[in-house]
């Protein structure tokens, strides 16, 4: 596409190939799990069979919250958060901000998990937020999200890792764009069947070409989210605020108003939520509520609303007076007044999460993620096929199928572990979900090393993963002890069941080899002659 010298092209080939060869499989894990967590809310709801019904956050919650406020340490009224998880449970956290043993500022307080219908306290935990036990009802969803966001690595290390992988994807996409000299000419070139190598190259180039723009966008936005707080904020603090991170954070989030600790009764949330649901305010039920300085004259309530299919495509925040309930206007994501920076941040979220327009945008974003996985895996296959004589690189081909199929399989076994443990003992949910995932990983490696022939290996992976997908709705039905007909009100649960079943069937059909590409021609036909892409010849 862009004319570069031979030396530059060779260096770009090295960057494009080696970065993917070294980190491609880790990148695949992040991208695949990212594609799946576009439906995290539905996964969370499905995993508990949508059993928690009730008005939840939009119900009569004031009396309960006031009674909870009386049960906690007075310091914890500094900030109160409230949200409803995918399982439907209400989670409220009364907390303050104090330094932990390492000297880092952390949230410390009391967390209640409430039944959305009866508002009965399901659990109460005290202490630092990071030390609190997991909320079992949302754990499967959390497990998948953490796999995408931090690869389950501790602290900021995970964010750095995924941030670096985002940059690797960015570099690969840009270098691929520069290297592919016939980007426009080959845009409708179906993968040729002359040789396996040519076929893989064409499959990789075609998918990469069409997915180029969104690969770059998703890579950049993903890297931004990983680095924004871990690296971006300290750098901004050092460069613009003389190292004062608190001042930097206050400026970015919005400098708080003057404090007034005169005791005043908290107005309650019900009227505020009703107000925020009006079309001229947010037009939807808040997904998150934060109350600052509960029971003081300077109390403020911020309601956060998610994007809606027919409304705003951004997350929006609205401010209310915590004493009078008066609407104080919309609060931008950054700072106190609307700005270009705030819009850009909002747009980055829109482009990365794909939640901005309901089901259709989620389906498209899931498909984009899977298409990027395809580009990553075909790129790795191409790298290995070009090094057919190297035993070292041939061993990588096993890893490609072990990770390629092993990841979805392990995510399925994690879900199996979750379903069984959630129905029998909620306290073991974390252990069994993780154990399920690790068992899936071990099984994948066993299959990878027992079956040396790629075709056999892949067929077996397709079979076991397909059976795994089909087993999920069955296990969920058995463990939830309810018939399928009882879920007619829970659209997400029914849709997930059907989707999992169909995915499983597709994999089983694929495992029969019916859809496998026709044999490659041994003779190189005219297909190979015309215009060989530049990097094919150079590599």
């Amino acid at each position, binding site marked *: 596409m862009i004319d570069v010298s031979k030396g530059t092209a060779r260096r770009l080939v090295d960057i494009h190939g080696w970065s993917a060869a070294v980190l491609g499989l880790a990148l695949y894990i992040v991208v695949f799990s990212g594609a799946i967590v576009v439906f995290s809310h539905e996964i969370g709801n499905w995993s508990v069979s949508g059993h928690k019904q009730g008005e939840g956050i939009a119900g009569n919650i004031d009396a309960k919250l006031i009674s909870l406020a009386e049960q906690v340490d007075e310091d914890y009224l500094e900030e109160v958060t409230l949200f409803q998880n995918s399982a439907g449970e209400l989670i409220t956290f009364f907390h303050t901000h104090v330094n932990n043993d390492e000297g880092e500022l952390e949230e410390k307080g009391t967390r209640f998990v409430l039944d959305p219908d009866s508002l009965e306290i399901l659990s109460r935990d005290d202490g630092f937020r990071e030390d609190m036990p997991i909320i079992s009802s949302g754990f499967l969803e959390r497990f998948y999200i953490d796999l995408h966001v931090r690869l389950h690595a501790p602290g900021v290390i995970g964010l750095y890792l995924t941030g670096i992988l985002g940059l690797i994807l960015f570099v690969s996409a840009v270098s691929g764009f520069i290297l592919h000299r016939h980007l426009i000419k*080959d845009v409708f*070139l179906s*993968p040729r069947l002359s040789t396996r190598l040519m076929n893989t190259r064409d499959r990789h180039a*075609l998918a990469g070409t069409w997915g180029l723009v*969104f690969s770059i966008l998703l890579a950049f936005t993903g890297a931004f989210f990983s680095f924004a707080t871990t690296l971006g904020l300290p750098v901004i603090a050092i460069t613009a605020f003389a190292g004062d991170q608190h001042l930097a954070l206050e400026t970015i989030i919005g400098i708080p108003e003057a404090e007034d600790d005169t005791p005043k009764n908290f107005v309650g949330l019900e009227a505020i939520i009703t107000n925020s649901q009006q079309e001229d305010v947010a037009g939807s039920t808040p997904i998150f509520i934060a109350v600052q300085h509960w029971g003081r004259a300077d109390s403020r309530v911020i309601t956060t609303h998610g994007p809606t299919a027919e409304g705003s495509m951004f997350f929006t925040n609205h401010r209310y007076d915590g004493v009078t309930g008066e609407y104080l206007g919309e609060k931008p994501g950054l700072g106190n007044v609307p700005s270009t920076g705030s819009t850009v941040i909002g747009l980055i979220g829109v482009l990365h999460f794909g939640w901005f327009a309901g089901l259709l*945008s989620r389906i498209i974003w899931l498909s984009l993620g899977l*298409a990027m996985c395809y580009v990553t895996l075909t790129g790795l296959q191409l790298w290995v096929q070009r090094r057919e004589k190297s035993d070292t690189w041939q061993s990588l081909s096993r890893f490609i199928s072990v990770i390629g199929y092993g990841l979805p399989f392990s995510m399925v076994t994690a879900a199996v572990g979750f379903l069984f443990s959630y129905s029998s003992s909620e306290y073991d949910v974390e252990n069994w979900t993780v154990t399920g995932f690790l068992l899936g990983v071990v099984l994948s490696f066993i299959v990878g090393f027992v079956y040396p022939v790629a075709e056999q290996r892949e067929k077996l992976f397709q079979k076991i993963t397909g059976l795994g997908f089909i087993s999920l709705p069955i296990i969920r039905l058995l463990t939830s002890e309810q018939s399928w007909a009882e879920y007619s009100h829970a659209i997400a649960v029914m849709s997930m069941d059907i989707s999992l079943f169909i995915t499983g069937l597709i994999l089983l059909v694929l495992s029969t080899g019916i859809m496998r590409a026709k044999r490659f021609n041994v003779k190189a036909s005219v297909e190979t002659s015309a*215009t060989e892409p530049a990097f094919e010849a150079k590599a």
Partner: protein
Amino acid sequence: MSVQLITLLACAVSFTCLVYLRNRDPKRRRVFRLAVWDKKRYPTLAWLLCFIPGVVLLYIEQYSAFIMWLAALSLIGWTVALPKPKV
């Protein structure tokens, strides 16, 4: 009209244009030994028409639909180009 419907409509227009372009693509025809397309091709017009839904969506301020259409376009293009032509 809902955002979803507008998006699907825009995708349908672009899909039609891409199928038209694919079937007349000279390299694809040459590589798979199809007969040379000897009639008029109008590739520029077809590409313009392919992107017109995006311009219209921006003009009528349907930004959600525009982003979805743009993202879907990359998937539609890929799935249109992927199948081997029937020789």
